[in-house]
């Protein structure tokens, strides 16, 4: 499905930039069905076990036109763009849609997908309160319902052996990607942050086996580089959809190097493996619960994990000099949690900066001014403390 002659990294970047092209090629080549899965917690392993290509629907780059009349402007860029993609038939490549997360804005967009299209849209709401005595039972029930729905959607039963195989493939892919991110934390600078994003984004789109093979090739082809003396930053936030690669490049062009992140299109997506030593559906329930412990998320409610503490630990571990919080404008869970992050970072003396992103364009000059001011501030305090 991919061009064998191209460099593996550029192939991955291309697929990350044009998921629809890949999905179309995959469907033609395999004759299989593809589903659009909405972020962030749909257990794609079940779809894979049913022989379905499960694709995390990505934000497209097109300006919003028809969608304007379906969802108002004070929604996050991703949801507004989803509504627009639905209205313009850009999602027709998918045979059905699955959603596991209760986000009010996302539900608004997915309702547009349901109303404007004629494909099945299934919502299995994974409860967001993670620590209640009945949480596990409720999550188990939903995992079972996903299996039932996908069986109905494909007309085939999904056995435990199929599921176990899919889980192994997904784990292998996550482990491989994690090794790249771990290397970055330890000082490797082979890939820019925009390239790392492409590795993760393409994983959300592609068949996992094919992706793993392609990433292995990209690693073999890459020329290793070590981190230089630029100011080290941690990128935090930005759920559901990817911050624009040009934003990541602008940050690095200002004289910084990204050494770690907790972005969904980054560390968050690949953080947690599914256990292979227990019954597969139960393992997927456990995965959902474990994920929020690995990298806490403000969309979930859990008292014994703290995103702020996680962030400080990450900053200490990677040796980041500062944090840039990337926030999709209008993302309510992020707006709610942000003050807790800022309080913790300020208390620990970690310089930080908030940048809000929107679907329409990027005020690059304003971003540069703020990033440079952050770097100037970090440099000043480094000199003062020298």
């Amino acid at each position, binding site marked *: 499905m991919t061009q064998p002659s191209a460099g593996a990294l550029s192939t991955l970047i291309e697929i990350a930039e044009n998921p629809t092209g890949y999905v179309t090629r995959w469907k033609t080549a395999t004759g299989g069905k593809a589903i659009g899965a909405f972020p962030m917690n749909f257990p794609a392993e079940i779809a894979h076990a049913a022989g379905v290509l499960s694709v995390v629907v990505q934000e497209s780059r097109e300006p919003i036109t028809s969608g304007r*009349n*379906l*969802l*108002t402007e*004070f*929604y996050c860029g991703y949801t507004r763009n989803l509504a627009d993609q639905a209205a313009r038939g850009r999602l027709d490549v998918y045979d059905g849609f699955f959603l596991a997360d*209760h*986000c*009010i*804005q996302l*539900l*608004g967009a997915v*309702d*547009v997908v*349901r*109303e404007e299209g004629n494909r099945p*849209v*299934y*919502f299995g*709401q994974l*409860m*967001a*309160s993670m620590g*209640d*005595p*009945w949480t596990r039972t*409720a999550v188990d029930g939903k995992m079972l319902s996903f299996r039932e729905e996908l069986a109905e959607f494909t007309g085939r039963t999904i056995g435990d052996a199929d599921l176990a195989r899919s889980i192994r493939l997904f784990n292998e892919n996550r482990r491989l990607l994690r090794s790249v991110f771990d290397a970055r934390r330890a000082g490797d600078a082979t890939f820019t942050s925009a390239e790392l994003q492409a590795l993760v984004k393409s994983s959300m789109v592609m068949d996992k086996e094919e992706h793993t093979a392609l990433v292995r090739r990209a690693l073999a082809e890459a020329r290793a580089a070590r981190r230089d003396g630029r100011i080290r930053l941690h990128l935090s936030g930005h759920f559901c959809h990817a911050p624009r690669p040009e934003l990541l490049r602008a940050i690095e062009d200002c004289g910084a190097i990204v050494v770690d992140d907790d972005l969904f299109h980054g560390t968050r997506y690949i953080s947690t493996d599914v256990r292979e030593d227990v019954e597969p559906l139960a393992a997927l329930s456990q995965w959902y619960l474990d994920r929020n412990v690995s990298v806490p998320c*403000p*969309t979930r*409610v859990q*008292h014994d994990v703290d995103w702020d503490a996680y962030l400080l630990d990450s900053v200490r571990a990677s040796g980041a000099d500062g944090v840039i919080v990337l*926030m999709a*404008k*209008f993302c*309510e*869970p992020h*707006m*709610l*949690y*942000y*003050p*807790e992050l*800022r*309080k913790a970072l300020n208390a620990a003396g970690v310089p930080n900066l908030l940048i*809000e992103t929107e679907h329409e364009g990027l005020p690059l000059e304003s971003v540069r001014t703020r990033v440079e001011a952050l770097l100037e501030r970090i440099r000043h305090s480094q000199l003062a403390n020298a």
Partner: protein
Amino acid sequence: MVADYWENVFTARERGQQVVWYNGSAVNPIFQAAGLEWCHGEAFSARLAAQQLEKPAQLAAEEYGYIGELCSYARTHLGCAVLTQQARSEDQTGVVGLIDQQELASRLPAPDFFVNAYAGCSTGQQWDEISYRVFGKEVPIFNVSLPFLWGNKPDSGYLRGREWDEASQYVARQLHDLIAFVESMTGRPFDWDALREAMTYIKRASELRREAMELCKAAPTPATYWDWIASIAHINFLPATQELVDYFQAVKDEIVKRLESGIPGVQNERYRFYFDGIMNWNKLGWLAKKFAAHDVAMVCGRYTHNAFWQEPHLIDTDDPILGMAQHYLLCPTNHGTKTLKYLTNRDCEEYGVDGIVFHASRTCRAFTNPQHLLAKAAQRELGIPSMFFEGDVADASFYKDEILESRLVAMLETIDLRRSRATA
């Protein structure tokens, strides 16, 4: 009645009462039966906005780091939480004047525990989680998780289908757990008889309210949407007593009297509108006057007519838990667009509506979600036009008054033209 309720909340500490902060559903009958004082976060924010007192709280929130696009109910309430917490530790905020700070902090008594039971909007549960963190994770919290009624299956629909039945049972089980939690907080066994009694009053009050609403299908309507807004606090969180029943009896009597004497809700009713959107607490009077000035009678709306114990027949006063659970699920933001289309079009037909006004409320996505789809459906299926205006629940800075005026005039002109053509 409402003033007495708040006075009671504000003096709870002096009287040695336990205080619970809660958000979302009307779980207050449980608190009433348990002998607690209850303070509804959204209602408190709405009250501040209605009294034009919201600004210092919103400023405190902004200083703490909340961005202005965040749900203004949450932002206002969290601002108060920050001030209340600071008052405990005798910190002073920089930007909020000391007098405002002390005033607000003294108004809202710190909670002994939180209960969150938020339907529809995902922000609701996250908001209380953050309140819990603002209070240093030291105040216990209980979450009731209310599933969104997506309405996808062939058998699913309003008050029916497997999804509805399963969700009702799931929530009912959690309410029993909530009651066990409340018992652990109060150290007293729960008074089930008190709950049955409270729910009996609520059921009766709700029946009277619905009967009175039904009378407003008459043209001209004897009472408007704005009149129903005026009694939201009563049905939503005031103590369930005989006084509550009497209040709604009086409302109904008044409407009957108006009908008999031919007193309309709006002089010269020429247009009948449906209002979709969460309430504009700081512009209430302004909006009511604006529409009345154009001879528009706002006859019904989603917020008033599809919420607040609106299906009293579901309440079994001997065993009220299931009916309560069902009402918590029946929040008008907890349905997918399919069901909302059914409810909106049904009400538009029954009330003889000429047009729909959508309040696209800037920081309330839960209410705004289906609005464009609802507008299209009403136009397509009933030929009813609609208009949008942008505003907000508790942040006045999002209004663009002139745009509302011109859109309203334009829609009325369209309706006039259509009418004249129909009679020509």
